[in-house]
């Protein structure tokens, strides 16, 4: 349920050139407010206006400035086409529903707005931006219980996820069910699957640029939502009389632990235990912006999330199975906390109509803390003897990045934009900090402590880039450039030169073809295990022993806008990867035996390739889309599975995402979303052979006079690395949204059903050897 007061209306608009291409960073000024804004990278802007007549002025270099008068009586969307000659620009008022579907532009960039994720069925009451992203071709979630998203066969760490330009390391709450992005706080999200403009340099896969809501300039307003297990509140508006300072604040909390506690307690009790499972999370988004004048603006952005999971199980037995009057107490508990903190301060300055510059200092960190405890007690009441076996393991991982960045933009004319910039960043990693404490024995106990093999690393990253976006003719659009990076760690330098090119050609109106090539590199690895997905994941730096990952991406595609607001696209891609890392065979995840770098193999190769098809209806009472991806993703390490190529864990051969929205009337909206993916690849023991026995004791038996080997242990024969495909991942979700307005408050009821036909989906494994996988709804 949501409600907000409304004495202003939103004006959303898009500024277009004569050839309908968006105009970036154009000035939009409202005389009544004495303030304005700039259009974004897709030519869009948003303003909050008072009801009545408003004068809105548009200006852009190379184009004639234009002022329009617009009578505002409701939320309105406009498109303004600017002219290079002295003709008057055309103003088109369109239906708000046009913004309900993701925008796939000719360059391959996908833009999602708040409306896109609000129209999807909500899971746990959350309209998650990441869910909307996962409805796009080539983008998959791992599955429920897996963190991150997987773009075109890449791993989660290969996605650069930015909040207002600052990276966030782990974008998942609640084991991947919900992302850390609060739909209320997100204004817009750009996804670059293959175009990789040169300004982005630090990941091997996609870029997701999340822009937080800067807050409206007119009046403080907000929304509040109360759900069964999550609630949230959002406020935004001006902070001063001049309306030059605005804020946007979003708070969200999840209290599912209030329910899982008593439920798990009940279930444990039925199984003869005592204990409970709890889970809570919260996140905060805060953005403050101050417009000094038409040329200078400062923004401060803060984001944090904290997740807290606890598990306890205890068995107490009095007068147990022995003849002694024995009391046994067996306790196992675990607590896991993880959090992100992201903050940035940005100064935007416009020198003139052609030059502008952004300077930013940003900070991002990710903490992961795990505490596991086991306590076994035997107390012999008569003899007063006591046996105790107690162990506790604490492990912590930490990654931090602090950056200074400066970007400049020069637009010599309406057809060309140069971008250039530099960044200096320091990174700090600590993996495996912790210890194992043991206390064991009879009556008198002596504890021992074994420290974990902590690995503390500092690194320095410096980058420069140059990018040219040029439209040499009406039919051609070219984005090209390069990104140069130098990464210093442990006294060793890694230099990268990454060329980028993306060329679009439109032989006829509304149809374009595209080809791109990108050099890629990243200086950190996400060390993932073959079993659980998130709890043992660790961000680790590139080192001499595990050099930066590099790769190339080649892609091409076509896109066509059809009548009746339909559009379709078809894409192909190939990505090569080098210097991947993976745990060694037999590696132990606890870091109690050796540090992470002693337990990995580096120099791994990877390749991902596939085809994507997409069709959508973007405008009208009925909108929707279907995305299909056929893809392969493989890895190869010299010392894993005898050096054979093996499927990547998220090698998903078929992936389908479909959504449908029906605007029944101004009050009721129906939605459906269906996701299908081939099952994940896992490593399973499938059979046992006597390989070991026949040879292990050969010599010994021969020397002892035996004529042939004896029977001994029988090792498991695995399916091959990731050689077993789990059952498919699929769910159908439905939503019903009812909107009504009572006085100044607009109410919104959202009822969503997740996984309507109750398909069972596999959770990550906790162990592999000999255990059957578990499944859950």
């Amino acid at each position: 349920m949501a409600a907000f007061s409304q004495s202003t209306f939103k004006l959303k608009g898009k500024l277009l050139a004569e050839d309908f291409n968006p105009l970036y960073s154009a000035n939009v000024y409202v005389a009544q407010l004495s303030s304005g804004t700039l259009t974004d990278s897709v030519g869009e802007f948003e303003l909050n206006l008072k009801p009545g007549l408003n004068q809105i002025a548009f200006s852009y270099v190379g184009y004639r400035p234009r002022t329009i008068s617009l009578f505002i009586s409701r939320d309105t969307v406009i498109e303004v086409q600017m002219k290079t000659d002295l003709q008057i620009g055309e103003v088109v008022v369109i239906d708000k529903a046009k913004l309900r579907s993701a925008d796939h532009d000719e360059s391959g960039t996908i833009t999602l707005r708040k409306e896109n994720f609000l129209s999807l069925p909500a899971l746990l009451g959350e309209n998650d931006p990441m869910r909307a992203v996962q409805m796009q071709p080539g983008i998959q979630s791992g599955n429920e219980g897996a963190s991150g998203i997987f773009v075109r066969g890449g791993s989660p760490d290969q996605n650069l996820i930015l909040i207002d330009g600052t990276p966030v390391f782990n974008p998942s709450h609640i084991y991947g069910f919900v992302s850390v992005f609060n739909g209320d706080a997100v204004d817009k999200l750009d996804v670059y699957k293959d175009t990789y403009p040169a300004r982005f340099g630090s990941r091997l896969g996609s870029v997701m640029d999340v822009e937080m809501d800067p807050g409206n300039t007119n009046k403080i307003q907000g929304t509040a939502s109360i759900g069964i297990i999550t609630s949230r509140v959002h406020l935004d508006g001006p902070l001063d009389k001049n309306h030059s300072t605005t804020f946007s604040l979003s708070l969200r909390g999840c209290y599912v632990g209030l329910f899982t506690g008593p439920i798990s307690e009940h279930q444990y009790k039925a199984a003869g235990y005592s204990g409970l499972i709890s889970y809570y999370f919260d996140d905060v988004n805060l953005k403050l912006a101050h417009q000094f004048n038409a040329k200078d603006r400062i923004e401060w952005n803060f984001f944090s999330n904290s997740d807290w999971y606890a598990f306890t199980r205890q068995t107490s037995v009095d007068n147990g199975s022995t003849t002694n009057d024995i009391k046994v107490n067996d306790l196992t508990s675990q607590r896991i906390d993880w959090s992100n903190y992201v903050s940035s301060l940005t100064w935007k300055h416009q020198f003139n109509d052609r030059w502008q510059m952004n300077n930013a200092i940003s900070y991002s960190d990710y903490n992961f803390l795990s505490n596991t405890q086991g306590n076994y007690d035997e107390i012999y009441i008569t003899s007063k003897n006591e046996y105790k076996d107690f162990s506790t393991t604490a492990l912590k991982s930490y990654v931090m990045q602090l950056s200074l960045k400066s970007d400049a933009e020069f637009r010599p004319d309406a057809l060309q934009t140069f971008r250039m910039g530099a960044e200096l960043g320091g990174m700090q990693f600590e993996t495996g900090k912790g210890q194992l404490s043991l206390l064991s024995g009879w009556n008198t106990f002596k504890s021992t402590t074994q420290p974990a093999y902590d690995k503390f690393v500092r690194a320095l990253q410096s980058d420069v880039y140059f990018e040219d976006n040029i439209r040499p003719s009406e039919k051609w659009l070219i984005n090209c450039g390069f990104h140069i990076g130098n990464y210093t760690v442990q006294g060793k330098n890694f230099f990268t030169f990454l060329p980028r090119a993306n060329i679009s050609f439109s032989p006829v109106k509304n149809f374009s073809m595209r080809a791109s090539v990108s050099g890629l590199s990243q200086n950190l690895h996400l060390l993932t295990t073959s079993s659980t997905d998130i709890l043992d994941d660790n961000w680790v730096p590139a080192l001499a022993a595990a050099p930066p990952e590099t790769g190339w991406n080649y892609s091409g595609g076509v896109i066509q806008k059809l009548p009746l607001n339909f559009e379709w696209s078809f894409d192909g891609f190939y990505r090569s990867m080098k210097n991947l890392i993976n745990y060694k065979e037999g590696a132990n995840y606890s870091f109690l035996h050796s540090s992470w770098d002693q337990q990995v193999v580096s120099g791994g190769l990877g390749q991902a390739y596939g085809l994507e098809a997409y069709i959508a209806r973007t405008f009208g009472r009925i909108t929707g889309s279907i995305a299909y991806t056929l893809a392969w993703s493989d890895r190869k390490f010299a010392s894993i599975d005898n050096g054979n190529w093996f499927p990547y864990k998220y090698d998903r051969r078929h992936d389908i995402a479909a959504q449908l929205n029906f605007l029944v009337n101004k009050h009721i909206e129906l939605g459906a979303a269906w996701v299908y993916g081939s099952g994940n690849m896992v490593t399973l023991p499938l059979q046992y052979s006597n390989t070991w026995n026949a040879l292990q004791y050969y010599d010994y038996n021969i020397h002892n006079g035996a004529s042939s080997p004896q029977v001994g242990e029988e090792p498991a024969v695995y399916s091959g690395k990731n050689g077993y495909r789990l059952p498919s991942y699929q769910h159908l979700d439905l939503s019903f949204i009812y909107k009504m307005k009572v006085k100044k408050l607009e109410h919104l009821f959202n009822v969503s059903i997740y996984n309507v036909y109750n398909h069972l989906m596999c959770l990550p494994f906790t162990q592999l050897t000999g255990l059957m996988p578990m499944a859950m709804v």
Partner: protein
Amino acid sequence: MKQIGAALLLIILLFISSCEKDFNINPQGTGNQLVVNSLFNDGTPITVYVTKPYPVGSSNNYITAIPDARVELYENNLLKEIIAYVPSDTQALFGSYISNTIPQFGKSYTVKTVRAGYTNASATDTIPLPTQLITSAVEKYTTSGPGPRGKMYMVFKDDPNTQNYYRINAWIGGWIPTIGTNGDTIPKFQFTAIEPYATNEVSDTVRDGDFLLFSDRGFNGQEKNLELTFNTVNPHSYTSLYLYTELHTISKAHYEYFRTLNLYRTSNSNEPVFIFSNVNNGMGAFVAEHIQTMTFTIK
């Protein structure tokens, strides 16, 4: 309000408590594969063990020998013989296919196994050329005092033309008095394996409790003076005592098999370990070696 709260709790309870279920694993892609094992050298006829694995979760959870397979042995890709099955004797649970062929070093041997209902399996390996053993000696063998109580060295010349792999095994053997069934004291010759430790550096080392495995990385083509130590077996009960040390020059497949086997055995198994197999369309190891034994009289 309380009723609404109770109803919500009940709904959630129903949803969550009924949402977990086991399912059976369908062994995708394993087919019916044979297990073919053989460790052969240039001193004894090739013996091949052909057995049948059993799937995870099977109630018939034991290994069975396959006596009616067609086992062909090739020498340098030429058919040498079809090996006959010899049933198990009283000491062994498995029968085996024992050839009449005594292999020679430097030649490649291939075994092809055909059996109805199974995928045809084949494997090839070559016995490495012998390593030139220059000298060897026992330096000490004591029953008391600090440190290792057995110590020896060997000097050998590594072949510069290939990458070589080695395995060292050691035994203490000797006559030991035992009490017979009628109370008589009968001398019996008895072997006990002892674990060798290399005191000077060797590369790619794997230790398994019984053997030492290493490669020639770091001394390729050179003379290697290898010093070994042992924790001794108490020699007092022996009437005579010998130290047997074997230098196995082994194929790469042989090395990989023992390396991965050791890793499987000793790891905590967080990450799965794939035991090496050179059997195409099957499992097991068909691996070669050349053995040189050094015998030293201790007592």
